[in-house]
């Protein structure tokens, strides 16, 4: 890695003692010698193991659940169903007033994705819990499922989630988050070329080294300590408090070093049910995802589709951009309404365009619920935007890098969401890339800066 101090030197004072110094990480020796303690390194006498009975269907009504055989299985201590969860229907962003509550801790009457948790089994050993889970009998009536966002949005599509009553998230702005800036149709009319293209992505897995999990120990005074690898301590504690209808002061969350998150550990899935198990049995409870659960049960990055329509002039100026983004939330909201909203604030990318129209939708399907992942709301948008930029440049016969210089935002430029640009540095990044990758551009582009024109 190289630090190129020549850029923005007038905006920095290099007079610091500790900041800017490559100090060795104090936790590195522990990591590389295997001494660092992770939550799962704890062991408590009498600790129970929790395993989930999961839906084998993408969408089904639950006619009945029979846990009698599982309860008789040797080593089983407790079997939990929806009726045991005090506030079973929840949504995590309710803490910042983004509702409605739309997801069950344990399925109640219906499952909406393959892998959904239906029954929790607590046993003396992991093996006993797994064997007993296989003995739970659930009678399902399979329902038509929808896996495609376009299909889900068609009239007459099966309703995935009755708590929404429609297959998309309803924002205060309507069926999508909107940004309107200038007159996009007038921009297309004046453009020398109009190019409309569609982009899509697949769900992907965070693949942390350490799988999601927690260990809950009763403190003996009706308080419970939850050792967890959540990425957000109080967010998880406060949501657990709502789900369990238990005052927050009865809960003590302890984290520590986490073996990778990437957004995969900001859902609140394992902690509430493990605390409930500890409360109802009076014993420590361990609930840790297997690698298979981490890869196929925990939320992936959302699948997205992005349609971009641009108007561009022969001289390289983009005069209009219309973006329609769809985020596949899967069966439940989790963080997806936030992700789709974040996309609306991110488009049209780091370029100054006078006419912009953005619609971003959050859609429900019977796929595995998606949620936060490194860059969500932006990553797939950037893939679409930057491939589109390449296509536009070639369409008008310009060098792709020069085309970006021509449209790059600078300090003071008004963005589509009506904030003036501050602290821009796109131009300098491209100038340095031009040098470092030996991708020459015209002299005029190497002479400009992100500072406001005339500043």
């Amino acid at each position, binding site marked *: *890695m190289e*630090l190129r101090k020549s*850029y*923005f030197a007038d*905006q920095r004072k290099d007079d610091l*003692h*500790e*900041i*800017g*110094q490559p*100090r060795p990480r*104090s*936790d590195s020796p522990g990591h590389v010698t295997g001494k660092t303690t992770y939550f799962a390194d704890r062991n408590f006498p009498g600790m129970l193991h929790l395993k989930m009975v999961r839906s084998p269907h993408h969408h089904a009504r639950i006619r009945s659940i029979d846990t009698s055989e599982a309860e008789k299985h040797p080593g089983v201590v407790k079997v939990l169903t929806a009726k045991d969860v005090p506030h079973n229907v929840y949504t995590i962003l309710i803490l*910042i007033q983004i509702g409605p509550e739309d997801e069950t801790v344990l399925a109640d009457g219906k499952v909406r994705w393959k892998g959904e948790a239906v029954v929790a089994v607590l046993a003396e050993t992991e093996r006993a819990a797994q064997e007993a889970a296989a003995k739970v009998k659930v009678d399902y009536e399979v329902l038509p499922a929808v*896996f495609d966002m376009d299909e889900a949005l068609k009239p007459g599509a099966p309703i995935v989630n009755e708590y929404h009553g429609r297959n998309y998230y309803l924002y*205060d*702005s309507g069926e999508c988050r*909107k*940004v*309107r800036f200038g007159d996009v149709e007038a921009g297309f009319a004046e453009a020398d070329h109009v190019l409309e293209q569609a982009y*899509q992505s*697949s769900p*992907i*897995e965070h693949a942390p080294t350490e799988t999601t999990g927690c260990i809950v120990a009763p403190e003996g005074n009706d308080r419970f300590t939850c050792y967890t690898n*959540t*990425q*957000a*301590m*109080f967010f998880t504690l406060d949501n657990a408090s709502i789900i369990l209808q238990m005052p927050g002061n009865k809960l*003590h969350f*302890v984290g520590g*070093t*986490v073996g*990778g*998150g990437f957004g995969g550990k900001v859902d609140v899935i394992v902690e509430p049910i493990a605390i409930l198990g500890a409360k109802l049995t009076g014993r420590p409870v361990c609930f840790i995802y297997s690698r298979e659960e981490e890869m*196929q049960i925990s939320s992936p990055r959302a699948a997205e589709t992005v349609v971009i329509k641009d108007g561009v002039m022969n001289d390289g100026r983009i005069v209009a951009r219309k973006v329609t983004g769809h985020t596949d939330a899967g069966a439940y909201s989790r963080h997806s309404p936030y992700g789709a*909203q974040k996309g609306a*604030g991110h488009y049209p*990318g*780091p370029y100054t365009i006078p006419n912009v129209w*953005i619609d971003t939708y959050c859609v429900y399907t019977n796929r595995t619920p998606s949620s*936060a992942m*490194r*860059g969500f709301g*932006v990553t797939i948008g*950037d893939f679409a935007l*930057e491939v589109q*930029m*390449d296509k536009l440049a070639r369409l008008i016969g310009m060098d*792709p890098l020069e085309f*970006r210089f021509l449209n*790059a935002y600078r300090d003071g430029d008004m963005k589509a969401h009506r*904030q003036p640009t501050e*602290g*821009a540095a*796109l131009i*300098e*990044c*491209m100038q340095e890339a031009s040098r*470092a990758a030996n991708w020459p551009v015209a002299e005029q582009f190497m002479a400009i800066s992100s500072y406001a024109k005339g500043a």
Partner: protein
Amino acid sequence: MAIRRGRGVAAINYPTGMNLGGDPTQALVHSTPTGNFMVTLSSVDLGQGMKQIMAQICAETIGVPTDRVVVDTADTDTGPHCMGTFASRGTHRAGNAVIQAAREARQVMLEVAAEELEVNASDLETDGQGNILVKGAPQRSISIFDVALSAHFKRGRSISGRGMFLIPRSYPEKETGAMKPSTCYAHACTVAEVEVDDETGEVTVLAVTNVFEIGRALNPKMVEQQLVGGSWMGISHALYETTEPYYPNRDHGGTDFNQYLMPGPGDLARTEIIVLERPSADGPYGAKGPGEMCANPQIPAIANAVFDAVGVRIDTLPITPERILRALKAQAPN
């Protein structure tokens, strides 16, 4: 049939912190009797090294070496509230809270030192090595060790401080979408070079040149580890990863690292990282959040490089050999 080379570019920006703000983080700082400093948080270290960075920020602000600072975090019984470690917010939000808390603690420390040295606190400065000196007369000094002992056992002062950082929440205007998504943005430009085998569809990423603008590199070595890791993740996202390889058929999703494809050591490209620093107005010592951004620009840069190599556009991720071969077949004259 041949191995064809191509090159592609992408340029991006990325907002720091939770979209639309409204995401608070607090910090507490106090000294021990012998002048070491404790930072108390409830933020989570995901392995990226947050504790180390918070220690450096506290040390810089108080004016002591980093090894005099200990960070206690991720315990809800002791640490004040943090919204969490996500949205490229940890360093920016918690860092600002630590600076505020450390400034308050530093002020008390200087007041106690002023009483010991019989001068005004405003006439004192720290040397960054554990001592407090009279400005212009450095022979008049006292160690922070002695200041802390005095504060605890003689003067009854608590060398401590409270910090809180909150960007007020922005609510988008319904019709126009007028809003403030973020207060600062990191930037990147990546050039990718690839080879594409037009017989097998296989893509080999030869090199990625990443230029990242991150506000301020608080610890350059840790910046490097995060940016290199992110760049690898971007390559993996572009070419390999999906939990549903046969979508809309939901079967055959990978369930372990043998089935879920990610790049192995032999698949890693030559990776160049160049860092620019344009300090952000509201960042801790100017820092922005590059944690998420650094995995993004490789994806479109590789897609554009594939086009440059073989003349087909793959607009669906991941860019698999199958998709490349199907596109080549569709494009070929009969």
